[in-house]
Structures are given as C-alpha cells and as structure tokens.
C-alpha cells in the first residue's frame, strides 16, 4: 500500500460525476462503446459493485442501521475493495479505466450528511485522481424532473431521509439533491472537473466528450497489441 500519486501507471482513468438524472451514465456508456469499437484496452467500472461488502451495505440500509459515519465508511470499504482488486491492477496493466461515479460522489454525498470534508479526502487519499473528470451540470429542476417522472419510488437513503430534511420523501430528495449539487460545484476547481452542459442533446454532448478524451489522452497507447 503506497500513497496515491506516488506511483506512475501506464493506465489512465476517466470518471464521470453528476446528480442522478444528469445523463452521465449515458455518456460514459457511449464512450465505452466507442473505445471498444476502436479495439482499445478499456474497462468500465461501476460504482458500488463489489460482492462481499454489498451484503453488509444492503443489510445496513434495509434496517436503517447506518449513521453518516458508518454510511460513509461502508462505501469507502466497498470502494477500496473495488479499487484494489480491479481499478488499480487495470491501471498497472495499462488499461483505460472508465468510472461511472468515483470518489467525488462520496465527497459530495457524505459531506451533505455531515462528515468532515478533510477527513473524507484523507480517507480516500489512496485513490488516484482521474486524468479526466467530467462533471455533468444541469439545473436542479431538470435533473429532479428526469428522476421524479421516471422513477417515483425513491429509496430511503437515496432521498436523504436519514437527515430529517422533510417527512415527505420527494421533498427530502429535492433538498438533498440541491445540497449534493452545491458540494459538487465547490469541487469543480478543487479537483479540476471539466464541466459539461447537461442540457444539450445526448449526441452533441458525446461529440464534445470524445474530443475531450482525445485531447487529454493519447489513445494510441491503448491499442491492443496482438501476440502472434
């Protein structure tokens, strides 16, 4: 275990961040398809996907046992597991790793829950800062509209109901998302996010995203080498 940034890897890391409904998953999915089509060494990693920690997280959420601190830690555990088993080895092996949500999701969400911001940054200090972080920004009402019309069954923690913002789950979700957005916006300069206009069409955004990826990353390094 060495500190973040003290090691250089041949791989590169691209992350997308933004509120639910910001369109980030669609965009990173299209980037993935594009790079696969070009025959590149690319891997797509989803937030919250490791097996072992998942049970505990589910149980904690179902029984509402989690406090802001343990909520944060259980997600950090999950992230560390995925980072060390998957993301880090891939970066070492020279892959282009795409992440739908990264540590900034935790920074935003957990800070809204009252966790200390400096503590969060130190805890996740082992994770490498992405080579490109795309933040999909759009007005809160637009993001809320997309979520609330498509998926009316909000989950307890997702809506920030543990924070007692409002007894009404939809209202709680609105307040929670607004605060998460504020946290994201305060991180734009801190972590050098590239801000995307999430109100534009999917296609127009994707054209911009692909250009940004090409500018930031030498894709030629990620062509598969075939062994004869």
């Amino acid at each position, binding site marked *: *275990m060495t*500190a973040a940034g003290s090691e250089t890897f041949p791989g590169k890391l691209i992350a997308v961040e933004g509120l639910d409904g910001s369109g980030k998953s669609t965009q990173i999915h299209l980037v993935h398809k594009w790079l696969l089509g070009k025959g590149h060494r690319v891997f797509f990693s989803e937030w919250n996907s490791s097996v*072992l*920690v998942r*049970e*505990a997280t589910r*149980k*904690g959420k179902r*029984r509402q*046992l*989690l*406090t*802001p*601190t*343990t909520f944060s*830690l*259980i997600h*950090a*555990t999950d992230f*560390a*597991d995925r980072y*060390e*088993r998957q993301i880090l080895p891939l970066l070492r092996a020279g892959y282009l790793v795409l992440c739908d949500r990264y540590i900034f999701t935790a920074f935003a969400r957990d800070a809204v*829950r*009252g*966790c*200390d911001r*400096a*503590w969060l940054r*130190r*805890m996740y*200090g*082992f994770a490498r800062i992405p080579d490109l972080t795309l933040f999909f920004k759009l007005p809160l009402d637009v993001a809320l509209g997309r979520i609330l019309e498509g998926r009316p069954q909000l989950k307890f923690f997702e809506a920030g109901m543990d924070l007692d913002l409002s007894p009404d789950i939809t209202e709680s979700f609105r307040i929670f998302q607004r605060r998460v957005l504020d946290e994201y916006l305060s991180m734009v300069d801190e972590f050098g996010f590239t801000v995307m206009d999430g109100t534009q069409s999917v296609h127009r955004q994707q054209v911009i995203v692909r250009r940004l990826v090409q500018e930031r990353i030498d894709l030629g390094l990620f062509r598969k080498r075939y062994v004869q």
Partner: protein
Amino acid sequence: MIPKYTYGTALAGVDLSKLSGTLIVIEGPDSSGRSTQITLLAQWLEEQGHAVAQVGLRRSNLVGRELEQAKQGNVLSPRTLGLFYATDFYDQLENGIVPALRAGFVVLADRYIYTLMARAIVRGAEPDWVASVYSMAIVPDAVFYLTASLATLVQRTFQTHSELDYWESGMDCGLSRDWFQSYVRYQRRIRSEFFKMQKKYGFELVNANRTIAAVDRDLRGRIQLVLNRAEALETRRTSRGRAEQHVRTSESPQGAAIRRRRKPEAV
C-alpha cells in the same frame, strides 16, 4: 464528568458535551488477560454503584458477520479489511459507546482503535492514513496496555486453546510458514507499533506477567484515580450550579475499594 474530545475530527451528529460517562480502554494481545480483567473490573465497579457497559471489537450488528466471513475467506486486501474494521468500530462507537457515555456509564472497552491501527500498520498501511481514519474516535479517559512476555503469552495460549490462532499469529502476513515463528514475529511487530503509539496516545503500561489478582489490584488503583478525577469535576460543576445546596453523598472511593472481593488465583 471528564470533558470528551475526539482525535481531531468531529464525529457527525454527536454532541460531546453531553457525554457524562467515563471511557476506559484495556488493550493488550490475546492471552494477556484482558477479558478476565474486564470481568473483574465490571463486578468491582458495579459493587461500587457504577453502571457499567462492556464493549469489544468485532461484535457489531452492522458488519460483524460479514467481517467474520471476509476473514475466513481471507479475500480482502489489507486496506479494505482495515476500512471494514473501521466501519465496525464506528458502528460500535456510535451505537454502543456513545449512548452508554451519554447515559453516564463507565464504559470498559476490550480493545479500541490502537489494536486496529497496529494490525493495519503491520500489514502495510501508512500510519498517517490509519490515524486519520480513526481521528473521529473519542479519546478515552484512560488506556491500559497489558504487556506480557512472549513466553507468558505462549504458555497461556496453549493452556486454554491447544493451538495458535491464525490471525493472532499473523499467518496472512507471510512472515513465516512456521506457525510458531510467525506468531513470534507478528507479536513483536504489533508490540513495537504499540510502543510507538504509546508516546503519542499516552497508554499506561500494566505488567500482565503477574497473577490475575495482582493485575486486578493494580488496575483498580489506577481506575480509582480516574473515577476520583471525574467525581471532582462533577462536584465542581454541581456546586457551581447550586451553591446553596450542600447535599452530597460521601462514600469515599477508598472505603469502597477495601470491600473488594478476593478472587482465587488461577495459574
């Protein structure tokens, strides 16, 4: 009450000024007699009229079972396992220790963050990172570190278990394929981390090579001092609040200590 602090980072949602209890931590390796001593101390404290809560590592509802599973499979990286332990620790801190302290209990903790930190550091975690993760822990009112020679520990282990424990022998650390050698090396490393931490965190060392009764007497004497300090601060607080009322109960702690029962000494 003794004012409470954390190790540098605020604990979300907890008002430390409301924690009127006393937090006492007993640290030490397996077979150093921690749990025996805690049982004796709990009896003694209750006889003295203190409400006592006992807490120990890896007993939480939240991730206790998953941690056991993870350890059995030995599939998690040291960092992941370290964070898993931290989750478990904070779950117990927030759901066990904090409510007990708020209710004015004397909390006896069977190990605390120091064992977790030492284990993580021995397995390669950066000491600063580990300290940072645990910086929301409440600073105990006293930490007693039971130390015993490896010879004593080994002898006691074989008396009760007939074999060495995989994790207490650090068999996951690749120190040696030989269990006994691995145990010796691992315990030395853990101990050396404890001595490094001792300066920073101010543990009181307690010689656990002695008999159970001797260690018990020693601990009682030291804990009595902590309780006296808490009592003195409480007196000052209440007498400031209502100076006209001189209603104070006055069983001297020393008097109560004399009533302690003698336990037959186990070898």
